[in-house]
Each structure stands twice: as C-alpha cells, then as structure tokens.
C-alpha cells in the first residue's frame, strides 16, 4: 500500500464572488521513500492539495474525495486524531520561513514545543532532540538559543526543516521551500532536504513552479494545470520527453545552459493561466496550446497511459490522433 493515496480529490473554495474550484478531481499516490514533485503555475491548485493533506484549508472550503495517509482517511479524522497526525504523520515546510516562525520565541523552544505537544518527550528530552535536529540540518549548535531575526534566510529555512522533522513524520510536504532564497542558498537547502530524505527514508511532496528544481530532487513528477493533473511519470522522462504540450512549455521556461535551441531564443506560451472560475471548455489548456485542433474545445481528455509508468491528458495521445501528434511535434 502506498503511504499516501489521494482519490478523486475535489476542492472548492467559497468566496464572496462565488465558488472557486481549485482542485478538480486529482488521483495520485506517493510511495514510501519516494519524492513526488508537484509542478504548475500559480492558481493551478498545487498548494491547495498540500493544504488538504494537512487539513489546513479554511473551514468553509468544500473538500470531496479521499486523502488516505498510512491507511487513515485524513478528511474524516476527529480533531484529536488529526492533531496527532499533523507533524507526526505528515508535516510541512512553507515558503516564507520568516513568516512561519514566531519572532519572539527562541527557535529551539519553537521546535521543542512541537515535540512536547505531541507528547513525544519530556522538556529535558525535547531539548536533547532539538540539539540532534540542529546537527541534522547543519545548523551550528551556538544558534540554538537565537531568535529568528538573528538567523539568515537559509538558516531560518533550516529551522523550519528541523521543525518539520521534529516528530519523525513519514511524509514531509515542502511547499516552495526555496523560492524566497538566494541561488547559492537554494542549492544548499535542496541538497540538505534530499540528503535527509534519503537518510531518513522519508516520503516527500515537493511543490514548486520551477520544473528544473523538481527534476533535480524528485523521483516522479505530476504536472498540474487548472486543478487537474495533466501529466505524470518518472521525473527525468517527464522533463526531457514531455508528452503534454503544457509540460513541454513549462520545461522550456527553464532551459539548460549550453542548449543551442534556446540560445537567444526565449520560449514561452501565449496567454495566461486560466481563472479557476472561468475554466475553458473541453481541454482547459486549449486556448494556449500550440497544437490545438478542432476537437480540443469540445471534449475533455482523460489521463491515458503514455508510456511505461506514465500518464498524460491530451487528445493527441488518443490512438485516433496519434499521427497528428507526430506530424506537429
């Protein structure tokens, strides 16, 4: 059994302007020890999925489907049981470490608090655990009694990672963990997370719009567009041999240095990501798709097998249109 199984997840935010469908039927699984990269542009629903796994969404949000973590459906848990699962079953590392940390509490106390709240240790033992966690995430021990403002951006993100690991969860969700960091520090934090993931055999969901970061750390990639997964498969295969035109465009936004195809030729998609309240008919990507044809606005493509362990949702991948795909590619 997979560690995390998400089945036909549908999430609709209730806003003053009416319901906003952010996730429109997502089914996916994360195996034990696996890193799944979840990619897509702002508004595609990737962070909403993270919120649903930890039940962090506003209470008015309509959530349908199943999110099964280690055999338990998160969406139906009692408040007490939910508290036990958060941090100990699954934890999250957010984007802006400076906003996620309490500015008037020492970082060691913040980490210790999480351990004690979950009854995993006495105060004394929690302190020892914090020391060990500091070492694990590469923070110097003398920083243990610092306040958040005394730390650099990279160090704060390391504190967040230590906190996420504090209760030994089996799943860690990292939502844009390095976007706010400088290039060099981003690489250091990515390396740290990947090393910890390997050493502790963690399962991870890594969320970012930067496909080049994801392909570096992930085993499998899921590409989202307008609340749905449009392509899914082994990370390097999806990145280098995308089957869906959207994935191809996203990969081209992060070209490799030395690749002559992109030298002095930035490539991009026309148009903008769709408004979740006005999702185009048929294939939601069709207004921006370079390979669009007459059937696209009429019929919504299903996720079909597009290779070993791979799936993609594009009408061109249906047997009847396969020739068109090769002609246009």
């Amino acid at each position, binding site marked *: 059994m997979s560690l995390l199984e998400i089945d036909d997840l549908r999430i609709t935010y209730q806003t003053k302007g009416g319901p906003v469908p952010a996730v429109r039927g997502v089914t996916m699984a994360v195996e034990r020890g696996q890193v799944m990269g979840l990619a897509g542009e702002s508004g595609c629903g990737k962070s909403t999925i993270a919120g649903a796994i930890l039940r962090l969404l506003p209470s008015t949000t309509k959530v349908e489907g199943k999110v099964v973590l280690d055999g338990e459906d998160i969406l139906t848990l009692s408040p007490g049981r939910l508290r036990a699962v958060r941090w100990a079953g699954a934890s999250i590392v957010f984007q802006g470490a400076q906003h996620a940390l309490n500015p008037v509490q020492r970082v060691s106390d913040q980490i210790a608090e999480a351990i004690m709240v979950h009854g995993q240790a006495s105060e004394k033992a929690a302190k020892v655990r914090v020391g060990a966690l500091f070492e694990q995430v590469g923070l110097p021990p003398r920083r243990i009694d610092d306040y958040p403002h005394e730390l650099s951006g990279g160090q704060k993100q390391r504190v967040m990672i230590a906190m996420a690991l504090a209760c030994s969860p089996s799943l860690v969700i990292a939502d844009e963990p390095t976007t706010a960091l400088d290039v060099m520090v981003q690489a250091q934090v990515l*390396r740290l997370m990947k090393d910890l993931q*390997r050493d502790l055999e963690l399962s991870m969901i890594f969320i970012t*719009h930067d*496909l080049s970061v994801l392909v570096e750390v992930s085993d499998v990639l899921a590409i989202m567009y307008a609340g749905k997964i449009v392509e899914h498969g082994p990370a390097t295969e999806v990145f280098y041999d995308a089957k869906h035109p959207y994935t191809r465009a996203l990969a081209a936004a*992060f070209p*490799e240095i030395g690749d002559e195809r992109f030298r002095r030729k930035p490539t*991009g998609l*026309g148009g*903008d990501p769709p408004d979740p309240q006005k999702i185009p008919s048929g294939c939601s990507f069709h207004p921006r798709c370079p390979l669009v044809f007459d059937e696209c606005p009429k019929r919504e493509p299903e996720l079909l097998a597009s290779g070993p362990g791979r799936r993609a949702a594009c009408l061109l991948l249906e047997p009847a249109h396969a020739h068109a795909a090769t002609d246009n590619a």
Partner: protein
Amino acid sequence: MSATEAPVTGEGPTSPTDNVIEVRDLHVTFAGHVSLVAGLTGKKGFEAKAVDGISFELRRGEVLALAGESGCGKTTTARTIMGLQEANAGEIVFEGKPIGKKLQAYRRRVQMVFQDPTGSLNPRQTIYEIIAEGLRIHEIHNGPNGETEEQLVGRALSRSGLRPPERFYLSYPHELSGGQRQRVVIAGALALDPEVIVADEPVSNLDASVRGEILQLLMQLRRDLGLSIIIVTHDLGLAWTVADRIAVMYLGRLVELGPTEDVLLRPLHPYTRALLDVVPEAGGIDRPILEGEAPDPTKIPKGCRFHPRCPVVATGRAEELGILDKCTGEDLMIEPFAPDHGVACWATKMGETPRASSVSAVSDPGSADPGSSG
C-alpha cells in the same frame, strides 16, 4: 514553438567601440547605523560598499546581463545607472557625455523596468493615464511626426503586445494578469522612445510559462527599435536565452565579463563556476555547492574578496601554485584575459581555469556521503 521565432537577433552589437553607456570606476556606499553616543563622538558606523569600483560599457544594440547573488551590488549598479541612486565616486557616461546632475533629459532616454509589475503601477490610475504620465512629465505633447498623445500611448501599448490598445485604455492594473501588467510597465518605458532599457529581474515575479513571452518581447524590441538592454538577473539560464554578454558581480566588483558563450560555457572565475554549479539540472543534486551565505558588504575580506569561499584556496591549490599570499592579501581588479573576456582571479593569471582546477573537489560537508546517491 511558433513559426514567428525566426532568429531574434542579428549578431549583437554593430561595432564593439560604439558604446551607449559607459560606467567608469563606480562606487556606491551606504552608511550603516550609528548609535547616538557613537555619532556624538564622531564615530562612523559600518559602511556597506555595495558597489566598489566597477567599470563596464553597454554597447549599442546589445543585451548585457548583470548576474550574481543577492547583495552583490547588481541592483545598486542598475539604480545608479538610472540616476535613482547617487554615486560616491565614478561616473556614468551616456553617449559620450557624463550624465551629471541634470537627469531629466537623460531619464527620458534610459528607462527602467522593475521586478514587481504590481508594485510599480499605480492601482488607481487607468492604463492610459499610466502610460501618458511619462509623456506629460517630459512635456511631450506630440510625437516627432506629429502624433497625438493618444497615438503615442496606443503605439507603446501595441508594441508591448497589448493589442488592440484601445481595449486597455480604461482598464485598471488589477484587472490585468501578471504578464499583462509587466507589458504595461514595458509600454510605459517605451512611450518615451528610449535608447536604453534597464530591466531589474523583469520576469522573476511572473509565472513560468509567461516568462518566455516577456523575454521574447524584450528581444523583439531590441531588434525592431534598436534598443540596448541591461538585464539584472540571478538566473544564468535566463541570461543564456537573452544576453549577448554577461557581467558577473561579487561583493560590489566585477569578477568576470565576457560574451555569454564564453562566460557560461568556459568560465574563468571560480565564482562563475560555482554559480553555474547551482543551476538545477536533472540528477545533479550531488554537484559541488559553495558553502556559506551571500557575503556581507560591510565586511569585505582582504585580498581577493572571494578567497574565504574560493575552492582554489580551500583545496590547497592556491598554495601549490604559490599564490596563497596574493589570494588572501592582495586585492585585484578585473583584467583582460582573452579577447573581450575579462576576469579578476590570481589563479587564472597563473593559467589555471576553473575547469582544470580542483573546484569540483570541494563539496558541502553536510553531505559527507556523496556516493550514496540513487
């Protein structure tokens, strides 16, 4: 990829001596905090030398990328070129003349595009008013061929890809998408018919798929209008897709400057190599990564300012070459190394280039077991 993507550029600048802007020995220092007591006793706080003596030129029709970590001085350099920040020493020369203090005429010809389009547009002005404001400030009532203000605004919008322009006249910024807003910012710059555009991280706030379009627009404007462009970026991949030359900055200095292909494919400075090593690539997480955070411009190290993080020093290679004293004690400026390719590195002067040196031997001590990769 669409059919309109014929080669976007010619072969870059027309002639290497035709410079639009020359930056000469520029210094910009920010004063640090001083306590009251210290201030009364005449003490000075730490000074941050954001830009510490740099010189380069922007050639006519070229795209020059200014790259480096945050805090390296790239944005300060751009702002000083724009006249938004006063220099402590050095000068900016535009078309052969120092810009001096009378900036209005200069500002019309050199326009800036900021990182955050939402923050640089007045939310209470319509798009028409936003574009027309620049024309009105510069008292341009008619174009060179007698165009009306509306025609000038319309032309700027359609050049920026907002077509038909009339559709956007009465819109407010919040009604547009992020990509459209950045196009409005670019249209605002274009309305004044500038020669130079300075773009500070113009796409880093935009969604991935929209970035390429904005960059394509800049490339197209360079080709159609003969603009010269300085693009400030931390993203070397972006520089690869647009820049003719790259200037790499570290702690307020240029450490390497040359044609994009040379700098990115055959880097001479260990810092450039390190920046290239952190560009994400598939299965590449086990590459060497430079330790430490972005350096502090209030505490500039002696000698080569990169030496505390330099792999050539850390691996003992500098000692082998007999240059350790120089690396740690003697400051150096960027010097020509190959044709059109300059570098500031003691090891390179000895004929060492990062590729040949032991840069790749330094790895993050946090990953003591690089062999365990899957």
